[in-house]
């Protein structure tokens, strides 16, 4: 991988690569983002987690000024957005959730167009496109029309398109949604490589595993605001504890487990046919007797945090 970062730009006043303060976005009567405060320090990978409709994609669009906030202030790489968003956009790369490559053009032509749009100087353009093809492992397929590439290749090309100008900041909106596990693992390697070279990454996802593996820190969004923030380990420790016990049984039994655990102040979540009692390491012996010995023990994870904080029912 031969990604080099662009030289530091003037105008980056604050240390944070992204800063949102009190941001509200309303669409008519619907409030998509509701008083969002979020700082992304330079050089980290921040995972933006949240269920569908939490406001992740709207937040991403506001960072590129493709949506204008109703209230609040946004700074990206030190530039106020949307007022000077064009300068911010010149220094960052965007990988959208929806594949918007030009299917009629080849992989190489898609990158060439964006090398122009991102103002890569003429002398460096060919090299920048070659590097981006190499990052996407598409050097051999550069002359293939996008229409004829596989889903995984297309997504790699979409990511490479956002990197062709070697940005300091990359926005990834659900980078691996709808892909095979093998392809996802490959893309994770690519994203991790970016962060290792000091590129700031803001990645929205609702794949918990993706955030656990890649993110230095996670911000959990619900109803248009951040409700929890920290490293994956901190979040798990704070909201789900060390261990979890899962109890299986008929609905009555599950309801009973929930009642007992909650009575003792322990968070629970439904995990399909079972109920998970979180923070199981704090279960008192008397409660353990009441819950019964049928529980299956496992380590707490970020998914437990996600469900506990954003609710069990899907809106």
């Amino acid at each position: 991988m031969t990604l080099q970062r662009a030289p530091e730009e003037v105008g980056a006043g604050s240390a944070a690569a992204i800063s949102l303060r009190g941001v509200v976005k309303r669409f008519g009567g619907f409030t998509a983002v509701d008083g969002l405060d979020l700082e992304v320090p330079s050089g980290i990978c921040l995972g933006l987690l949240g269920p569908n409709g939490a406001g992740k994609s709207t937040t991403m669009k506001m960072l590129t000024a493709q949506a204008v906030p109703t209230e609040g202030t946004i700074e990206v790489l030190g530039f106020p957005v949307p007022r000077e968003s064009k300068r911010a956009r010149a220094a960052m790369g965007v990988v959208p959730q929806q594949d918007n490559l030009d299917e009629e053009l080849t992989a190489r032509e898609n990158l060439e167009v964006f090398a122009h749009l991102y103002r890569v100087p003429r002398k460096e353009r060919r090299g920048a496109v070659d590097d981006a093809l190499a990052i996407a492992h598409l050097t051999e397929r550069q002359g293939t029309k996008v229409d004829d590439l596989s889903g995984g290749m297309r997504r790699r090309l979409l990511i490479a398109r956002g990197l062709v100008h070697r940005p300091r900041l990359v926005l990834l909106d659900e980078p691996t949604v709808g892909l095979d596990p093998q392809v996802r693992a490959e893309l994770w390697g690519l994203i991790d490589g970016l962060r290792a070279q000091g590129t700031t990454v803001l990645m929205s996802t609702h794949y918990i595993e993706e955030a656990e593996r890649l993110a230095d820190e996670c911000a959990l969004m619900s109803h248009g605001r951040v409700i929890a923030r920290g490293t994956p380990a901190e979040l798990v420790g704070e909201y789900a504890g060390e261990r979890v016990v899962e109890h299986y049984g008929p609905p009555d039994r599950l309801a009973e487990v929930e009642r007992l655990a909650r009575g003792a102040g322990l968070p629970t979540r439904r995990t399909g046919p079972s109920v998970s009692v979180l923070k199981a390491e704090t279960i008192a012996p008397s409660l353990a007797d009441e819950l019964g010995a049928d529980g299956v023990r496992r380590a707490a994870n970020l998914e437990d945090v996600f469900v506990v904080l954003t609710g069990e029912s899907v809106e």
Partner: protein
Amino acid sequence: MSGAQAERLRRFEMAPVRGVWRHELALFKRYWTSQSFASMVEPTFFLLCFGYGFGSMVAVIGDYRYLDFVATGVVGTAALFTSVFPGMFNGYIRRVFQHTYDAMLAAPVDVHELVTAEASWIAAKSAVYSCTPLIVALFFGLDPSFGMLLVPVATFFTALGFGLFGMWTSSVVPSINSFDYVITGVVTPLFLIAGTFFPVDALPAWAETASKLNPLYHCVQLVRHMVFGIRPLADLGHLAVLAAFAALMWTIAVRGMRRRLID
């Protein structure tokens, strides 16, 4: 980034325009043969049908041989069709189906630059292709003249205005099917009452007045004068109408596209 370069990012820039043109050029490489075929063969059919068929009944109109009258008129219709349809359909498809414009606006490209780039590409291409009827007509006996070399100027401004009109309608219609209203309700009458196939003074007074408001009428007049003899004052007037039309369409196309592309 130097201070001067940073400063320049705020206003209208050529870099995004060149980028959009690069995209268009890559696409053009794939369809230039079919478009070139159509742009040569269609006026040939028109001239065969109207020139020989209709021309057997109408030998001359005013000072012109009917075939020459039609050949110059068809330049105008070519400028209309090769600009308004790309404006409408590319504008809609790239925005709604392909999301090309969303991708470009995430890069340092603003809506007014995107619209300008797309429209100027359409206009440049149309300006060239609209001249093909004259080339065909040379084989049908049209006398060559130096004024013909100015025709691309007239067709460029015409195509710029109609390309932008098409882009504006693409930002207004609720679905791609609604273009039927635009095509039948607007484009067809514009094409018919522009003095292309018959002089507008043959029309009833109200229709003649309406045709003077039609930018295509001014294009056709300008093209005829360029081919058969410039009338400086009148032609500056025609050119001014076409430029004003393009400027007005630019304003509403940028506003319409911004409304659709920026939430």
